[in-house]
């Protein structure tokens, strides 16, 4: 294998996203292992500025794929443009981040080649012959091979470090000429959830978060009592807010809020990657879980293996006593 390894760059308000620079790290690693070349593609109606940002990061060529139809992301637009680029450039591996863009576009592109995609990978061996990913909410990992090319891959955010600036690659403008009608989705707008102003987890010093295993809105009281005793805020994993036990603004994680309190207590939360990314930067992390294998323990400073319905009330009592309210 000595073809091209193509990184699909994502931008946010014109800036190249950090996760895209993580992909470039992987692309460079794969290029070195296979004797191939690391390339990147920026798609848009005006992609040259972002392509120029990427060009100084150790890739040989950055394709600035330009078309009025690529002004906003659509699955059809991205798949059609990348299909053409790949056909003309001889690409063996295409790398996306496992983001709302990546999981939407990558399988669509692999389908063009009648192949499954390799989704949410966290490691690679043998120059792209063996890929590793997690399953069952991080409980297990599995290694995979794909019999066929190209390998269309989505990479978990944070699995590779962002690349350093290095060298100066070429920016190559490509006019892709999408036919009108080729894009069936019509982008309307991007919206942000309105903040209620009632809770502000992002600036909280103390957060006590509960998970699915609390079991009901009523039982969530034990989490609230501990948060009150500490003078902190209540956080939650997604199933809690999905079920309506708490409003969405309490949800910590990739599709909720990223928090960085001095103290984060996670009770009955397994530690799925989407939760971890939202709280791992907390100053001091306490995890309570009855499963000693729970991935949450890997990011915890203090691990308590036990039943939250015993531990949490005992802790509330001890905190109140320590503060002289007991």
């Amino acid at each position: 294998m000595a073809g091209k390894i193509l990184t699909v760059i994502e931008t946010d308000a014109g800036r190249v996203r950090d996760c895209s620079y993580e992909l470039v790290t992987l692309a460079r690693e794969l290029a070195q292992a296979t004797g191939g070349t690391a390339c990147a593609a920026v798609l848009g109606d005006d992609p040259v500025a972002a392509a120029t940002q990427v060009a100084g990061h150790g890739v040989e060529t950055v394709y600035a794929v330009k078309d009025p139809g690529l002004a906003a992301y659509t699955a059809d637009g991205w798949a059609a443009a990348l299909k053409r680029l790949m056909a003309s450039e001889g690409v063996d591996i295409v790398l996306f981040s496992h983001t709302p863009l990546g999981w939407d576009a990558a399988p669509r592109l692999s389908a063009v080649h009648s192949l499954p995609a390799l989704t949410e990978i966290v490691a690679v061996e043998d120059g792209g012959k063996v890929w590793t990913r997690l399953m069952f909410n991080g409980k297990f990992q599995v290694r995979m091979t794909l019999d066929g090319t190209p390998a269309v891959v989505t990479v978990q955010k944070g699995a590779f470090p962002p690349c350093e600036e290095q060298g100066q690659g070429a920016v190559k403008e490509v006019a892709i000429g999408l036919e009108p009608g080729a894009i069936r989705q019509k982008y309307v707008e991007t919206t942000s959830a309105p903040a209620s102003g009632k809770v502000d987890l992002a600036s909280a010093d103390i957060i006590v978060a509960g998970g699915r295993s609390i079991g009901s809105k009523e039982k969530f009281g034990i989490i609230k009592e501990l948060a009150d005793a500490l003078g902190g805020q209540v956080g939650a994993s997604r199933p809690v807010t999905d079920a309506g036990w708490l409003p969405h603004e309490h949800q910590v994680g990739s599709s909720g809020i990223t928090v960085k309190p001095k103290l984060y207590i996670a009770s009955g939360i397994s530690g799925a990657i989407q939760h971890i990314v939202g709280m791992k930067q907390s100053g001091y992390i306490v995890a309570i879980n009855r499963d000693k294998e729970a991935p949450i323990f890997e990011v915890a400073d203090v691990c308590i293996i036990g039943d939250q319905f015993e531990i949490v009330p005992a802790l509330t009592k001890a905190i109140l006593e320590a503060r002289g309210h007991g």
Partner: protein
Amino acid sequence: MKIVVCVKQVPDSDAALAINADKTWILESGINFGLNPYDRYALEEALKIKDAGEGEVVAVTLGPDRAAQVLKTCLATGADRAIHLKDDAFQGGDPWANALALAAAIRTVEPDLVLCGFQADDDTLAQTPVLLAGILDMPHATGAMKIERTDAGVRVERELEADRREVVDLPLPSVITVQTGINEPRYASIKGIMAAKRKEMKTPDPADLGIDPSQVGAAGSRLRFFDMAVPPKKEGGEVLTGTADEIALALVKRIRENTGVL
């Protein structure tokens, strides 16, 4: 409006899981299975659309005999009929092989809309619905947190990161994957469970669907899993042991010494 809902039977979220002898998948004996949580939201979305107008909801699954249970759940909850791809030739497939089989079954329904859960809670591959859309040549959108009918099709709010959403319009027919929390799924009533017994459940084999058995199931797969294992653990933190009260006291001490918040 004819709506297909693709569903999968997965291990219950609190099942005690172990790895099989080949290290390719979990040991499936002795655990409980149920409807993939993401699919419950997809089913509810289909039933809501049906409630708002008229139409038919067809539940489709690919899986062994035991997977009939999730179709029964769908029928009892309000789906009108079901298709179960349970022939041996369909089993053990990768996402492409599965999407190919599902597409053949879905073509027989000629739906206006195909709804799927965002991902399966077991393998979390999050790709079969998009492959399916590719095979059916339908446009798709993933991670819907809102689906609305429009004159020309549907308007979908896709969930992005950090509490943002992307609004897109799609024509019909299309394939949409649904995120958890989009709605409040209903549960089957006793009446629904009784009614489900009279509803149709088809079990076509590859020949019925006009597909070559070598293209589906394990034979048609090119993505292979091996060496399944518990991931190497990063060095975790200090483990506190003792009675709940002892642990609580030790923890108060740690919080005092390390955080400055007490």
